[in-house]
């Protein structure tokens, strides 16, 4: 297929065929953050973003991690994509250690985050070509691959050469999905991919995620606060609460465990707190998780 990165043979050689897609054991990450209530001069204190998190994801599986702002979802995604170094525990992707074999992991993983981050003055085509070069795709390959992948995510062809700054958030998020898919990752990390999108764009993105799973046999880790989205897309659902993973099971098992009818009720039963809406709190989440 023309949209595939040319390093497929190389990529195949890096996959331990016996290992699960993701294997996380007692993973810990602590940031230091200042207690805002105590003022700006207060001393920073340790803030556990991930607290002995353990789970496994099988190949081809789609797993959703639910959690509120600051629960550690983004930290988990960043650790698996080699953007953070853990404080303890182990994380392996297709048998490779994320801290010690980062360069190998980078060939296997791609990510879509809540912010569709691009060079704003460059067009969708230019941004995708740029990203694809890092994965070994030549201009000849992206000349056909980029329009093809943009077509798949429903991006209008006439806007391919328009600067990203002129595109709506939904359009930008589609380009972000295309960027992640263009490099044919075997593990796709989706960190709030539909947050802030209008209902129609949200459905389109979700439909695309389903297609990706069906067509590419990719393993997906979806971090979200949208319970309906998690239930619709994932084989198993976990709740990450204040850095602790409470469980990771099929949605029906979760409901049965707590004797409830909805995931919202299950969340309340598991954490003792309501699952609050997160819109508009994203920056606070970033601050807490990343810069503490």
């Amino acid at each position, binding site marked *: 297929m023309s949209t595939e990165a040319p390093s497929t043979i190389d990529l195949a050689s890096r996959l331990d065929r016996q290992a699960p897609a993701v294997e996380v054991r007692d993973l810990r990450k602590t940031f230091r953050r200042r207690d805002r209530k105590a003022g700006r001069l207060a001393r920073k204190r340790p803030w556990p973003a991930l607290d002995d998190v353990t789970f496994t994801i099988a190949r081809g599986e789609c797993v959703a991690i639910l959690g509120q702002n600051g629960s550690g979802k983004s930290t988990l995604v960043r650790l698996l994509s080699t953007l953070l170094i853990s404080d303890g525990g182990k994380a392996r992707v297709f048998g490779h250690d994320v801290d010690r074999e980062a360069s190998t992991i980078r*060939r296997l993983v791609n990510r879509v985050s809540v912010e569709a981050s691009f*060079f704003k003055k460059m067009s969708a085509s230019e941004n995708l070509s740029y990203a694809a070069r890092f994965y070994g795709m030549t201009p000849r390959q992206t000349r056909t691959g980029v329009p093809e992948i943009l077509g798949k995510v429903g991006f209008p062809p006439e806007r391919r050469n328009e600067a990203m700054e002129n595109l709506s958030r939904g359009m930008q998020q589609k380009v972000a999905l295309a960027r992640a898919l263009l490099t044919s990752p075997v593990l796709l990390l989706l960190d709030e991919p539909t947050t802030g999108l209008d209902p129609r764009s949200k459905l389109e993105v979700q439909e695309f995620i389903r297609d990706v799973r069906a067509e590419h046999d990719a393993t997906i880790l979806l971090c979200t606060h949208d319970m309906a989205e998690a239930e619709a897309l994932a084989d198993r659902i976990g709740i990450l609460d204040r850095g602790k993973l409470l469980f990771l099971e099929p949605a029906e098992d979760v409901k049965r465990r707590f004797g409830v009818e909805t995931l919202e009720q299950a969340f309340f039963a598991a954490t003792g707190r309501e699952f609050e809406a997160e819109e508009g709190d994203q920056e606070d989440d970033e601050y807490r998780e990343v810069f503490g």
Partner: protein
Amino acid sequence: MSSGVGSTEPPKSGGLGFAGAGAGRFALETRNQLVGLFGIVERNMYLTKRYFLWDLAFMVWTIANTLTIVFIARAIPGITPAEENTAATALLVGATIWAFLGIIFEFMTETVAWERWEGTIEYTFMAPLSRFVHLFGQGAYAVLYGLIRASILFVAVAAFIGIHAPQANYGAALALLAIASVSFIGVGIMTSVLPLISPEKGAQLGFVCQGIMLVVSGVYYPVSVMPEWMQWISKFSPATYALRGDRASILHGTGLQWADVWPLLIIAVLATPIGLAVFRVGERHAKRHGKLKRAG
């Protein structure tokens, strides 16, 4: 599992069925890295095209700034027109190299700062591109772009002031600058880590390094006028040899001098690995403390 109330194990295992590792992984990896290097240069070309008018405005500022320096030659009392021409040329060479170095340091510090501002830094840092190729690609484009800008600056100011350099050996001057550029990239890599350590002030600190390097290198004066301890430090600066050699080539038509080339080669061989090592330490620090992604 160590915490929580439920199972975190998968219900089943899957398989992807990829073929085993093939021969020639090294060749494939090298090819991929070269394509990545091209990607860095290509992206910078896109951005230069998009910001062309801003660059033009900045060029006007650089020319104006250089004129303020070169006009000093006209104000020196009691010198002949030939001496005035020599002084103006010497000042112009200094100002041009200052501008050239400024471009390299700007590009290198922007490696992190600009991507952080755009929000793309995490995507670049999680890509399978070696840090050496990433930073060298950025430096290579900076050198190309800097050489074009420095040439335009030199020609524009020389024409404006009316500098005559009939003996000038421009080929040797450009060649020496190109050799010095490898060292400049190495030093630039060291400074490019600064925004990773301090997102707010790191980029400015890069320009402090540039200023210090040029002060000890005799940017507008011979190194011999400085205190002895500064002259000793100047031996470790690649700008010292670039300035000395380029002045000789422009004023006297001198060709490439081995006395200028060998120190530059040694500094280049040392500066790049040291720069990469410094960057790696900074990158690990940023990844440990969550400083990679930060706006502002």
